[in-house]
């Protein structure tokens, strides 16, 4: 018994250490890699002494670092959001976008782009971010209303998918009346990217994601009880109705923030919680929650590094990279697990 417990702890610590090493390595690579070659000596000077070449200073402080920080925060948010939904639906393929969040965001962005930009020539980025966030929360609001009437979780997934279809249909109607520029830009928005992130954006996303993630972590105990079944959680004193609302609300909040700032980024929310649980061989929220966040950050750091450097100056979308590199890994792990 003690030996099993020890092995478990070793596994947790090993996973954590590996992720931390990957995290540090990817941070260093993200700071070092880019279209412009900045020497390690210069990077150290820029980071710790704030001196040397002004261009390189701006490249590191105003381009690479905010973008990297965004991928850390938003990657973690996506993974955590996925973990919450997989727990809630008790379904391994439930991801952050299953409740129609990306479709809701896209719909609102389409409305803003097509109606506002066709009348006024410009719009600020804050308006588009607010529109995407509002769209995500609108979809989630519908899901919450439905969740009060529907008891079955699988029915709730179906409702989420249906809401996604409605939002997509509204978007398509908007696109029908849109000109080429709007269609192209909407398509570009839906590809997802961390490009152009500023420290101001990082500040806003951090103020949403970090407190939300902390609340999720503090909810580890009721989440753990819920994993053992609704009736068990009820017996443990968990207010199921409130708990379900909280779960959907928190995951949607995290996912909405990602979509607002970086557009829809697929796959991370499904894959990372799955991978983390496979490595840890546990679903205990107290363990999985922080590691899931770290895993999401590592995954997005890696994907964004590839996305911006592989064909520079052309950038791939983060979703493209995360799917191409992530899918084979997940399939391999699933097959390996099955063989075992």
């Amino acid at each position, binding site marked *: 018994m003690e030996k099993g417990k020890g092995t478990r702890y070793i596994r947790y610590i090993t996973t954590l250490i590996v992720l931390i090493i990957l995290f540090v390595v990817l941070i260093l690579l993200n700071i070092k890699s*880019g*279209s*412009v070659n900045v020497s390690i000596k210069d990077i150290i000077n820029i980071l710790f002494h704030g001196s040397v070449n002004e*261009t390189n200073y*701006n*490249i590191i402080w*105003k*381009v*690479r670092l905010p973008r990297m920080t965004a991928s850390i925060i938003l990657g973690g948010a996506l993974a955590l959001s996925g973990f919450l939904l997989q727990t809630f639906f008790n379904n391994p393929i439930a991801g952050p976008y299953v409740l129609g969040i990306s479709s809701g965001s896209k719909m609102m962005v389409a409305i803003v*782009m097509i109606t506002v*930009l*066709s*009348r*006024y*020539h*410009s*719009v*600020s*980025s804050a*308006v*588009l971010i607010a529109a995407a966030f509002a769209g995500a929360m609108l979809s989630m609001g519908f899901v919450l209303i439905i969740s009060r009437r529907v008891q079955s979780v699988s029915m709730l997934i179906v409702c989420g998918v249906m809401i996604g279809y409605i939002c997509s249909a509204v978007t398509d109607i908007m696109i*029908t*009346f*849109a*000109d*080429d*520029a*709007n269609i*192209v*830009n909407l398509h*570009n928005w839906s590809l997802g*990217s961390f*490009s*152009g992130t*500023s420290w101001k954006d990082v500040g806003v996303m951090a103020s949403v994601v970090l407190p939300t993630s902390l609340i999720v972590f503090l909810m580890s105990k009721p989440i753990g009880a819920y994993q053992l079944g609704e009736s068990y959680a009820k017996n443990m004193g968990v207010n199921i109705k409130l708990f379900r609302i909280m779960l959907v609300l928190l995951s949607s909040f995290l996912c909405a923030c990602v979509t607002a700032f970086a557009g829809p980024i697929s796959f991370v929310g499904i894959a990372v919680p799955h991978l983390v649980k496979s490595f840890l061989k546990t679903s205990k929220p107290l363990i999985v929650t922080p590691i899931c966040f770290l895993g999401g950050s590592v995954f997005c750091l890696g994907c964004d590094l590839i996305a911006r450097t592989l064909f*520079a*100056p*052309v*950038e791939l979308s983060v979703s493209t990279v995360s799917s191409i590199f992530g899918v084979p890994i997940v399939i391999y792990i699933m097959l390996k697990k099955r063989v075992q």
Partner: protein
Amino acid sequence: MIKKRCISIAMVIMMTLPLFSGCSRSMEENGKNPENGWQQEGSMELKYAENFNVDYYKGGYSLISISDGSRYLIVPEDQDIPTNPGEDITILKQPISNIYLVATSAMCLFDALNSLDSISLSGTKAKDWYIENARAAMEAGDITYAGKYNIPDYELIMSSNCGLAIESTMINHTPEVKEKLKELGIPVLTDQSSYESHPLGRTEWIKLYGLLTGKESEAKQLFDEQAEYIDKLADQEKTDKTVAFFYISSSGNAIARKSGDYVTRMIELAGGNYIFDHLGNPESATSTVTLEMEEFYATAKDADFIIYNSTIDGELSSVEELIGKNSLLKDFKAVKNNNVWCTSKNMFQETTQFGLMISDIHRVLTDDDKDLTELNFMYKLPAADGESNGKR
């Protein structure tokens, strides 16, 4: 129109006021009116352009005001930068070099001015330029591709000491890029020529780029050459010929130009009539209208001429290919009478040649020569039965 002018006059007055106070020191040094600070010497003469204006001040300073509300003070190489020019004024000290050019329509203007050397970064890849000199400069490495308008390579742009980013109105869809470039200290000028309703208004933007590159007189001369084509046509009688200008999208819809758009104005200036009278919302900034085929068919089938817009969909080689996009098109009067023309793909990259383009359309409408199959910016599609002598 009057309202618009009043607004622009008020805008210019309001914009100039802070300049008066902010630049007093510099102007005093340059010798002018100490009471007002700045001494205006005149304004740029503009015939068609409505989306920018330029005021000249003593000492060689020029203030560009653009319809999106942005203002740029061009400071001559030998003059000092004013100490307090006003928060909303972007300073551009001449010579302006290492330009990141994203607005494709502006490239031909720089090319015509022989100013490609002031551009070092492009938002379009070499293979996508139809302007030979631009393509050659990119292939030679004089101009580097620095990413699309929505995902520019900020690092490359910064390391190139970019003096100015010239964006198209597409940047309005991705405001975060514009904000980021400004944050990085790169001035951004959004080319609003696409909002000019008169085709020559677009060409007249060459005067603005002439000012930026210090080649104002060359710019004026090039513009006057194009304006001359219009002046010649102004004396000619209008034909009663109707023209449909459109393309068929991949989803099967007809994409036509909004009535009053600059392309429809080109048709009218050439002596023709655009087949759609009131197409699209005149208040809208969009230039195209998506039409369901039935609606398109009902009006456009009686058009005397079809000019197929190849920009998005690609060039066509025959009428058969056009009919292949929708069989309804074979019932069109223009198809039956073998009056189908297709634009060359470079048409929209040749802003300097709009006068010539209008004269091309005029020839299409008025020249009865059946052997006329190739013009400067369009060519006739060979008929389905091979009657036409189309060269392509």
